[in-house]
């Protein structure tokens, strides 16, 4: 663990090297990624490994740590150079992205809830700066405002709850959270306590009622920011709910309500996706849909749904990031994200439709890719909890398939406007970028236990 962190800090130091900034950083981050794979814990038990005083890895955080480390070099591959910026501004960009990854690693491996919270909040500021400084349109100011205030207002109750927990149980260690018992004063107060704890994560995930910041932030962020946001920052929410649920084993009233809200949210968002005109907004809304499903899974909190949630988080991170990278490849060439104008590229961009097909197929849940496994586990768990949610989840899945195929069909197979298709060729860098997004999906197929959680 300490090796990982030291490597990540060294990447920030490397930024001040004058030449070879991006390439050196890429190599350092790739080294870190390969180191991180050693954290994988295949024993299937709930043990903590890499144990130190304040940092450790268990089978819940290992896949997410690997995901963050994996996405780091891919971000720098996608945003190859920030055009037109001076050297110090480029260094700033690199420093911000590296600091996000550093804090993410700390978040996923921290053993103390307060340090988890501090690092959770610390990822906010660099992301905000990334969106508002390097975004392309004037709407980025509004996007930054929405992002900042939604997340901040969500996490204030979490801070209150953490202080309360530390007062009542006089400990904030995560490994012993299951055996600590929280006594509420009345029957209802434990429910309220639980809600104020997880509302920060619900906003971060986001679920349908709190999702307004996501399409704005994703659309306005530069591609590296979009990729990190979609891939990992959203998963902080899922991770947080799973960790915090250990303190609240018997919240039934509000958890039932929240599960239903999340399922309906998934349905509504999937329907909204079919009517979007901006490609990046489409992918952003699909993130909301998938994450609402994950949220429902984590709130139901059974073995199957938790495993499904982690699997879906990892798979969705990779696929969503791949889709944003693909959208950016087209955007760099046509300067528009409108799906009626970026159309019909099957004949022009030679190998790209293959990557589009796999990414869209993964997005809709095609077996044997892990997206399906995660969705299946979650849906099975939720249906066994209440049969009435079955039609809602079924229709949500159908609409998920509809908009994923819509993405593929409109960008690749629609009628083309041949005369406006003057394109530079897709460089090998871009092909490698998408390939490395999709390779881990294949490896998860053959080693699913790496992304499944302990059986209690």
């Amino acid at each position: 663990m300490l090796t990982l962190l030291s490597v990540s800090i060294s990447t920030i130091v490397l930024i001040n090297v004058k030449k070879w900034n991006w390439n050196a950083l890429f190599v350092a981050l790739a080294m870190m990624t390969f180191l991180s794979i050693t954290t994988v814990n295949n024993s299937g038990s709930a043990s903590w490994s890499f144990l130190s005083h304040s940092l450790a890895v268990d089978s819940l955080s290992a896949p997410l740590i690997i995901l963050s480390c994996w996405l780091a070099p891919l971000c720098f591959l996608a945003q190859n150079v920030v055009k037109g910026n001076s050297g110090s501004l480029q260094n700033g960009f690199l420093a911000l992205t590296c600091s996000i990854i550093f804090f993410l690693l700390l978040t996923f491996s921290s053993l103390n809830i307060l340090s988890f919270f501090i690092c959770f909040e610390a990822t906010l500021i660099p992301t905000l700066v990334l969106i508002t400084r390097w975004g392309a349109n004037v709407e980025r100011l509004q996007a930054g405002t929405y992002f900042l205030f939604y997340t901040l207002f969500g996490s204030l109750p979490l801070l209150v709850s953490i202080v309360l927990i530390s007062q009542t149980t006089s400990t904030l260690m995560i490994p012993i959270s299951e055996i600590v018992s929280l006594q509420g004063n009345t029957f209802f107060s434990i429910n309220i306590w639980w809600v104020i704890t997880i509302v920060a994560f619900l906003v971060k995930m986001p679920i349908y009622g709190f999702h307004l910041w996501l399409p704005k932030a994703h659309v306005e962020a530069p591609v590296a920011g979009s990729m990190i946001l979609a891939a990992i920052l959203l998963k902080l929410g899922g991770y947080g709910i799973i960790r915090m649920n250990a303190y609240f084993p018997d919240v039934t009233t509000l958890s039932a309500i929240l599960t239903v809200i999340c399922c309906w949210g998934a349905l509504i968002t999937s329907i909204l996706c079919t009517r979007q005109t901006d490609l990046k907004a489409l992918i952003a809304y699909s993130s909301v849909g998938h994450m609402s499903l994950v949220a429902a899974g984590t709130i139901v909190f059974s073995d199957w749904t938790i495993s499904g949630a982690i699997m879906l988080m990892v798979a969705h991170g990779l696929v969503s990031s791949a889709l944003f990278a693909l959208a950016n490849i087209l955007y760099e060439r046509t300067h528009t994200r409108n799906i009626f104008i970026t159309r019909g590229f099957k004949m022009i961009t030679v190998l790209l439709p293959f990557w589009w097909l796999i990414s869209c197929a993964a997005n809709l849940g095609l077996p044997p890719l892990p997206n399906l496994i995660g969705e299946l586990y979650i849906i099975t768990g939720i249906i066994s909890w209440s049969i009435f949610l079955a039609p809602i989840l079924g229709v949500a899945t159908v609409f998920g398939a509809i908009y994923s195929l819509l993405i593929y069909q409109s960008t690749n197979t629609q009628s083309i406007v041949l005369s406006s298709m003057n394109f530079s060729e897709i460089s090998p860098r871009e092909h490698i970028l998408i390939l490395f997004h999709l390779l881990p999906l294949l490896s998860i197929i053959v080693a699913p236990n790496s992304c499944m959680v302990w059986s209690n």
Partner: protein
Amino acid sequence: MLKLGRCVHLLARCTNQTSSFARTLASGGTDITKPFRQIRDGLSWTIPKDLQNSDRPPGEVDVLIIGGGAMGSSIAYFLKAARKAGVSVAVVERDSGYSMSSTVLSVGSIRQQFSTPENIYMSMYSAQFIKNVQEHLQVEGSDPPDLQFNDQGYLFLATKDKEHILHENHIIQKNCGAKVELMTQNQLKKRFPWMNTDNVTLGSYGLENEGWLDPWSLLKSFKEKAIDLGAKYYNAEVTGFNVVDDDAKPIDPTQFAPNGRRLNSVMVSMINSPEVVEVKSSYVVLTAGAWSGQLGKLLGIGTGPKEENLHMPIPVEPRKRYVYFFHCPEGPGLECPLLIDPSGSYVRREGFGGNYLCGKSPNECDEPSCEDLNVNYDFFDTEIWPNLAHRIPVMEKLKVKSAWAGYYDYNCLDQNAIIGSHPAYGNFLMATGFSGHGIQQSPAVGKLVSEKILAGEFQTIDVSKFGFERCITETPVLERCVI
């Protein structure tokens, strides 16, 4: 203390705004939808005021339209009216008063009597649009637009030797579905007794969908509806283009396949300011009217190598045409059509007080200079009045009240429109060169260009005959009925 004062100040402003809204409601004011529109437009909540009402174009836009006359505004309207596409449209117009624009200085008439089927179809579509303009172009919260469309036909007159042209055109027009009738000399004498039908053997009279309207209202309605739907107009001038030249390969000039060039961004310089904004756009539409040829040169069209189809300039240049407004007390009344003499002069009724508009295209060798828009009154005395007096005897007694001059965006090749993209720059579309019949085709052209952008091909009418390719191969598509 300061905070308290600020709170009170904000509260006062809030109540002020609500009370003014209440006052507007109570007084039956027309613009009650403005507050709702402000709420609908979410950006107004968090973006500072001076960024919102910015006069500068944004850094990135989906479609940039150069020139905000009737063509540009029509294209902007149709692009935005296809609401499910959600394209962002910016129109760059350097003259906010439209003082030299061909649109506002035009006589504003619409006819179906062309010899090219595409022209006939375009005019028919536009006539339908104009008749239903209140349905299409009404802005919520204000009065429906009134174009003052006078439904009155054109009357083309032909002497014995030009009769066959009129016959051939008539067959083409009938095939396209235009409602036109041919009238012999006797029929003309009976129908229009005030007309001298001496050497005229045939007349072609439009029965429906022809007439004249107020072009300024048309422009204003298109512009206001486009702005209401979300298009943005900027008072600025295009001064340069940036081209991306990845793998520009020389191509076979007989095949109009795209090479590696792409129009990346447009340099827009603000009026009265040294500021130049670079606007990245996915499509650029050139509707600059008489100045389109000039703008094409900025892009290198006309000065480039032949292998890349850049050797032919856009053949559009301004030509000055005069329009004279006169009063004739005994002139023909309501039944006066837009009469076109075999000599080329035209005259039409204007209003109901015995006023008329007339004009004539001068011969090639007598083209007036286009330096300014000053009117030459001698032209009326020597070229137009004798023909008028010969054709309509009562018009020997008339008094010229005023006159103005306007530019035709004259297509030197064949006086027909150029609609379509340039072979060298696939995302550069043109809709120009209308040579005097632009206003009547503006709704149709708007629809066709929006289809080209959103669907990739012309769906309503196939105007590929009017593409720029004919300018490169120099095969004119001649229009016989040019006024």
